């Protein structure tokens, strides 16, 4: 590693010596093939960042971004106005609370599944159960929403009829109260098996000698899980949680819109920032205000993602992707 570092440093020193033209002359081809990719990020990531000025404009679709008038913080006023303030607080609250629930339950189930998969010694059973548990991750939320209807629909849905037979009548598509629970269950159902893969990789990498030593000391399987497996998994758990916390301001649009769509009866439980901005844009055509909410989300999101990456790098220097 250190020799590699040394050669890299040497290379860096050599590179410092020559200027822009020499660099292009030398590595022109390599820069040239990057052009399409760099243009992609310039157009589809950086130009929209510039488009955030719409948040400060009295945006008019005919006049466009360059023709619309600026009117300062006018678009942010509605955040504090009566009537909308409650809605904004609700969608921000739902976003943070639902993401918090998703992080907690997904992590618990992914780690538990990984540990339990490891306890399953029968090869066929292990392979089949693992394959099946990852399957939902490969299906879109749109399809999952259709499959969910088969359980929750008032007429004939498997779960709602079963509950009705037991005397419990819930009209799932008009009653928001069970929806946060439903969303958590769906999140775990869809992602826990896939999320477990990371932990399985760590568990299978554990030196079997450690377990054997514990066995000789008379440790039970449970003790081995508590005192060996979980402590070894802890850095991975912390890291994965950190990355999820970094994205806590971003609602899972694909999931929430896929499952709830425009069903306003369920908004109190399931409406998140992303679905709210989408509705303001597509239904109310309120460009300035929806950009204002989007801007606040981007800024808060940036602070969290940046902090999470910083912490992750401090905690586990190898983990940083960049």
């Amino acid at each position, binding site marked *: 590693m250190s020799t590699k570092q040394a050669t890299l440093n040497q290379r860096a020193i050599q590179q410092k010596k020559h200027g822009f033209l020499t660099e292009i002359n030398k*590595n022109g081809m390599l820069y040239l093939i990057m052009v*399409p*990719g*760099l243009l992609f990020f310039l157009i*589809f*990531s950086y130009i929209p960042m510039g488009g955030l000025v719409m948040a400060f404009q009295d945006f008019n*679709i005919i006049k466009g971004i360059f023709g619309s008038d600026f009117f300062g913080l006018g678009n942010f006023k509605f955040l504090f106005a009566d009537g909308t303030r409650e809605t904004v607080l609700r969608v921000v609250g739902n976003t943070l609370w639902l993401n918090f629930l998703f992080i907690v339950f997904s992590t618990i189930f992914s780690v538990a599944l990984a540990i339990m998969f490891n306890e399953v010694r029968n090869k066929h059973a292990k392979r089949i159960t693992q394959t099946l548990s990852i399957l939902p991750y490969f299906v879109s939320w749109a*399809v999952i929403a259709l499959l969910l209807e088969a359980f929750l629909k008032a007429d004939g849905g*498997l779960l709602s009829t079963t509950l009705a037979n037991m005397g419990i009548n819930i009209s799932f598509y008009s009653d928001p109260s069970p929806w946060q629970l439903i969303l958590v269950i769906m999140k775990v159902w869809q992602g826990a098996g896939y999320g477990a893969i990371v932990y399985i990789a760590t568990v299978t990498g554990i030196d079997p000698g450690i377990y054997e030593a514990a066995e000789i000391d008379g440790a039970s399987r449970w003790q081995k899980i508590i005192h060996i497996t979980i402590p070894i998994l802890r850095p991975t758990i912390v890291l994965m949680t950190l990355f999820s916390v970094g994205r806590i301001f971003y609602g899972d649009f694909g999931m929430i819109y896929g499952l709830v769509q425009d069903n306003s009866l369920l908004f109190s439980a399931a409406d998140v920032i992303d679905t709210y901005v989408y509705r303001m844009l597509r239904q109310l055509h309120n460009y300035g205000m929806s950009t204002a909410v989007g801007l606040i989300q981007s800024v808060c999101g940036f602070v969290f993602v940046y902090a999470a990456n910083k912490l992750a790098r401090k905690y586990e220097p190898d983990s940083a*992707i960049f």
Partner: protein
Amino acid sequence: MTTIKQHKAKIKVPAGDKALTIFCYSFVIIFAILCLVPFILGLSASFTAEVALAKNGYQFWPSEFSTAAYELLFKTSQIFDSYKVSIFVTVVGTALSLLATTLLAYPLSTGKLKYAGKLNFFIYFTMLFTGGLVPTYMLVSRYLGMKDSIWVLIIPILINPWNMFLLRNFFSSIPGSLAESARIDGANDITIMFRIILPVSTPALATIGLFYALAYWNNWFQALMYIDKSELKPLQAIIIEMLRNADFMKQMAGQMGVQSTQIPSITSKMATAMVTIGPIVLVYPFVQKYFTSGIMVGSVKG
């Protein structure tokens, strides 16, 4: 071998171990079954006669077997149009994404570019901060005029920065001596990339390609935002339409001249879902290992 066996036999199995094993097996098996159950319920519903479904509700075995839902589905031109769109977007999109990602990842992995650090940050920053939905929508629909074009389903989501960094890290892990020996033989950077680096990277390219393919196949967001023409809607977007509009199937069949009283509108929704996940379920057992290796590269090694 025998000594180990004897040794193991001497160790007393703690009493709780058996219970724990049973618990783990049951938990894992129940979870796996729960993962499968909704698909079976959907499959069964799609083969049930509409009247029987209305009377008996959703069941795991069709109470009255019928293929009417599929017959209706294949009578409409919509499902064929959508299939074509989905396949085109998945195949062409994956190829273009893989190409653009590789052309970005390889130069950044070589370690000989003076501006690599700045370019890395240029890409990394897009993962930290976004312009968000509204400016992107304005750009794509108003200024680029991509509304109702099939390319809007590919171009605005062409490169995933995360995939780019995964691939770059993989390329960097290839021993430099491989490229160096080719360079001595007079090969230039492009030849080295195509002749030396890419052939030894097929597992990584397969993984990234599958990530892209799955994302394209399952994407409905782009269509929701930018596609109004029904013949340009991919399968997933049709499903979203069905979810949003309970009468969508009736309207679709009405256009084909089918009488609305005979339309199996609930079961044909399930049939559409089955047709949509069909290719994934068929391919998935064979490609699963690439996905698992991909996520491990991504999160453990980085």
